């Protein structure tokens, strides 16, 4: 058995969104694509992304922290989306990946409402819901070179802030990262048992300054 996850190190992330666009460009031509763009050159553009980098600020000048937070599907152990799907189109695979069967999806959007992470996106062209597949086509590929059998976001991150691996393998890099750092899951209080983990920002400076 496997339990695939991605560990995201916020100590390294600058928020460049390389992961966000790499995800889109890989998957739009993949089996779970396309990821459409509506009014791509127009006034009210809408573009589908399965992974988004959010930027927020905390603190008061000059003791401020700017944080970039890549958020996508958490591939939860108790996925709220799976529970609410009336037709069973959304399912969790034995390896932990949460997927949508496009043939069964009726586009009711219950799952979009249920997901606490905003990870699911409605495709207005196809009338179905799409989401991160953890690049299941890449990680199970028999064509790609072995080192490339990782999600596109992990493959492309310029600062290697993202690590893909199997939590069921105690020797894996992700198991090590989680065990040896103060890792956290996002909003565990929603009870969905998210599998994707974050490592916090670990700045060494604690100088507080008067204005």
């Amino acid at each position, binding site marked *: 058995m496997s339990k695939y996850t991605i560990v995201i190190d916020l100590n390294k992330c600058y928020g460049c969104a390389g992961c966000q666009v790499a995800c889109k460009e890989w998957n739009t*031509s993949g089996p779970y694509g396309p990821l459409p763009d509506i009014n*791509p050159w127009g*006034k009210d553009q809408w573009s589908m992304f399965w992974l988004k980098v959010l930027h927020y600020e905390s603190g008061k000048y000059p003791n401020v922290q700017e944080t970039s937070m890549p958020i996508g599907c958490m591939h939860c152990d108790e996925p709220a989306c799976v529970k609410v799907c009336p037709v069973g189109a959304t399912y969790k695979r034995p390896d932990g990946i949460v997927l949508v069967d496009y043939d069964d999806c009726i586009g009711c959007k219950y799952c979009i409402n249920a997901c606490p992470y905003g990870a699911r996106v409605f495709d207005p062209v196809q009338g179905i819901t799409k989401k991160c597949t953890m690049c299941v086509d890449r990680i199970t590929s028999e064509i790609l070179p072995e080192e490339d059998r990782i999600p596109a976001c992990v493959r492309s991150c310029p600062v290697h802030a993202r690590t893909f691996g199997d939590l069921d393998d105690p020797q894996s890099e992700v198991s090590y990262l989680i065990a040896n750092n103060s890792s956290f899951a996002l909003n565990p209080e929603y009870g969905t048992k998210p599998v994707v983990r974050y490592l916090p920002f670990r700045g060494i400076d604690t100088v507080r300054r008067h204005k």
Partner: protein
Amino acid sequence: MKGTVGGTALVTLPFFAETVFKKSALAEAAQDQPDLVEYTTCCSCIGRCALEVHKTADGKPRFVTGARGAIVNDGGVCAKGAAGIMHYFSPARLRHPLIRVKDSARGEGKFKRLTWDELYKLLNDGNSDYGFLGLKKIRETGPWNLSFYGGRDQMSTLNGFFSAMFGTTNYGAHGGFCSVNVLAGGIYSVGGSFWEYGAQDPEYAKYHMVIGLAEDHFPNMYKKELNIIRENQGKVVFVGPHKMGLGAVADEWVPIKVGTDAAFFLGLCKVLFDRKLYDEEYLRYYTNAAQLVIKSKNPDGTPKQNHGLLLRVKNPKTGQWVEAVLDKKTGQPQAFDFPGVEPDLYFSGQISVPDSPKEGSPIATYEVATAFTLYTEVLKDYTPDKAEKICGITAGDIQRIALEMADVAFNQAIALPIPWTDYLGREHKVTIGRPVSFYAMRGIAAHSNGFQTTRALHVLQMFLGAIDNPGSFKYKPPFPKPIGGSVPVPGANQSDGSIGGFAVQESIHNDGNVETQWNNVRYPHAYTYVQPSTPSGLAVDENGRPLLLDHAYSWEFPFSAHRVISAIPVTSYKEDPHRAECHIWYMAQMQWNNAYNLYDNMKFITEKHKDGRYKIPFIIQVDAFYSDSATYSDLVIPDTTFFERYDALSLLDRPISKVSGPGDCMRHPILPVLFDSRPWGDVVVTLGAKLGLPGFINPDSSQKFKDYGDFIVRWEYKPGVGLLAGGRGDGTEVCHASPNPGQLKLYFQDKVQPIAVTNGDVEGNKGTEYIGNSWWYMELPDSIKHYRNVNKAYLKWAKSMKFIDSDRPIILNFYSEVIQKFNLAGYGMWQGKHRVSGKQNLPPNDPGLIKRLRELYQPLPFWYPPMEWALDGADPEKYPIAVVTQRPMWQYHSWQHHNPWTRALLPRNYAYINPDTAKKYGVNDLDWIEIESRYPDPQDKPSRMRVQIKCLDGTRPDTLWTWVSVPVRPGAWGLDPDAPEVRKSFFWNWLYSYYLPKSWGNNLLNFDPFSGMTAWNDLRVRIIGKVDTSETYPISTTAGSLQLKTPKVLNYNAYKELNNSGLHYVEAEKQ
């Protein structure tokens, strides 16, 4: 498809008979087969990441990611690079050459299609309908009347060579409006700079300070290396008025007041100085801090003719007349480079030496002090308390930071078991490293005090002994280089029409007399990027007026190392010093975000001369896209994207070298050329041949280079030196060896191959080169990796590689005698001669120029307020808010607005303001506000703008900032004229002042007085208050749009027909 890349008209015809991509059924069937993979270099910004491009069986781009193991990005790619597919397929791409409809006015955006044959004919012959003389006639009557500038540093070597062979002295690239202060200040101080010229050594760095950095020169590599430093428990400190961007992941933020960085650096120096926490050995031997400066003033404080010049003596061994130090061993003056000399860092007193190197020269007594001693006086003005008042960082923080740096440099020094020998023959058993490093860019560069600020930063590095050793700032080969080169001058053209210039040699006597000699030189010795070392080397006429169109190398901007691109619109308009018959702008947006003042630039190019022609008769825009500026051009030449063309990122220009060795990279056509566009490199080699330019034709006048790829392999800058340094000769030689016809194959092999290097003048191991995946890098042997400016073995090797002409040491200019020569000139005391008149080189007549030579040309760096902030200018009392820009990670200039995958990340910008400041002005988050600068708008009122604010605590309270280059001219870039880029986004280009306040002179340009760098960040505004609007103001007039209607839905799938992805226009245009 590769066969269609050639630049001649013949090959295009069969190309258009087919569709670009084969029927996709083939591709769909091949979905379970591996994609095709090719490697090239990204050009979505200037970061030069190596790309791995996956293509479908029919040749469509499927996935763009980073090439693993690449020295720049090691497999990574940012949003811009990953969105490359839509860069290529953009509807904003120019489809064919365009000529302005002759009865329409510039700016109306009315164009008609030209064929390439018609285009070449027009370029050659001109057209009286447009008042365009044609390049042939321009070349015959005054080639310098062609101005050719690039807005980015791409193709600079080729474009520069074309200009040189054409015979125009008016060539340059974008450095003048980018960060040339940092480059020039670095070259004049340490013979190198940051970015392509030098950087931190991530392997050993323990403390790293990021200062005012823009997000474009190697953004991915830089982020990766900052993380390496932090992973190694090093500290990263970010200095700047706002924290977002690279500051986000820093360990400490130093929220400095805009334009005051020099005071901060000098405050740190003062702390180090007072506590004797400086590297005395380093300062004595590797900088000129211990060299002796002559003190010779009149009673009224004005300088005598030898004041501030360095004392010189004969080196008893070489016989050369060189700078002197006081030898502690003998108590006597001695040549700085005499073996065994032990310089005294602190000497001050009288010394008796001969006046000149001539036999029997009389001996005189001079009052001298070491440069280091003189700096004691300057630093008195920068005690932490005094520095705090200027830069807004508390005295306590200044002291703490200085002590942290000193602790790392001296208590945590690195010692590597690498023996090396310095220029004096002193053998060092170990290589000592001072693991404190810096990286600086636009934040300190874009000010009229940026040159001196950069000098101050380098002096701080010298205090720490932290230049080119393990963990410190290190040069990237071919740097370090001494200043020099010969300025080109109009009228000095060679018999074949190519440019010429003159080389200066001078001998400075201790009494201040100067012997000056000139030799006429030709390309490549005469080139457009040089660093004059004396007023006698300026490109000025006998009256001190500039000879070059951009006023480079004149009294106005003597150290304009990358020329002065921002001056071209205004000097051309004023015909000062001569008319520009034709402007060629390559990848520049001079009628948009590159305009120093947009109102003025539009006026300059739409006003007519009394001869009925436009003041600037013909404007050519070269670009891949229908950009904001294209509409104001007469002729638009469609380039391809980087996926479709050859390119070389060369050691001659802007390479990807690392601190541990030289590197370069290239591009080649990996996707088919779309539309009727052509790679600009191919157009240049063809145009050069059609014009019959030397260097572009064979002896029988036929075209010499088939295309730019052919040029890259065969062209030599000088014998053995070409565009690409790797795999030369038989493939095992580098940098300086004969061209290798198989060179490109080595670059584009699909794996990186290590090859033992066989050439180079170094003992033992000659190093290893790594070549493939479109890049090349050579790891230097350990013995020549450190202290390279004074490392005997390195200097010998670098000379053999033709990086430098001489293996003389490059002693760091703690003290700049070059600047002092100009200071003396400001008092009429410089005794050097002018090359034409042979008389004493007269100072400029302009009192404004004299004032700055006297006040700002100080040989030891100091802080002065940005010139624009004078009481009669943007006085901070009246204009309390400093205004700056920052480059977003997701966009590079305008190149991402036409790309839906990146415009989705940043469709508009806001003016970021500290919440307390907003409160003070009674405005709230997301309000629209009106701001005002001092510079007059076309109605002669202070220019006003409307912008929407967002409150952000990571912003200094006296600062307003935004993301740079987000707005789009209505109708440009294929965007809806009501798009947020057009209606909500803004830039400050409506507010900048072209001229300095009157107190600094009459109509003098508001550029750095040393380098000519545009002082973007000197802008100050006052906030008028809230306005009731939902749109920015001003919005430019509409550009006539030439683009097809863009699709409402984009559903890209590389394995499907383009028509099914919404990209119907790509193939439709082919039919």
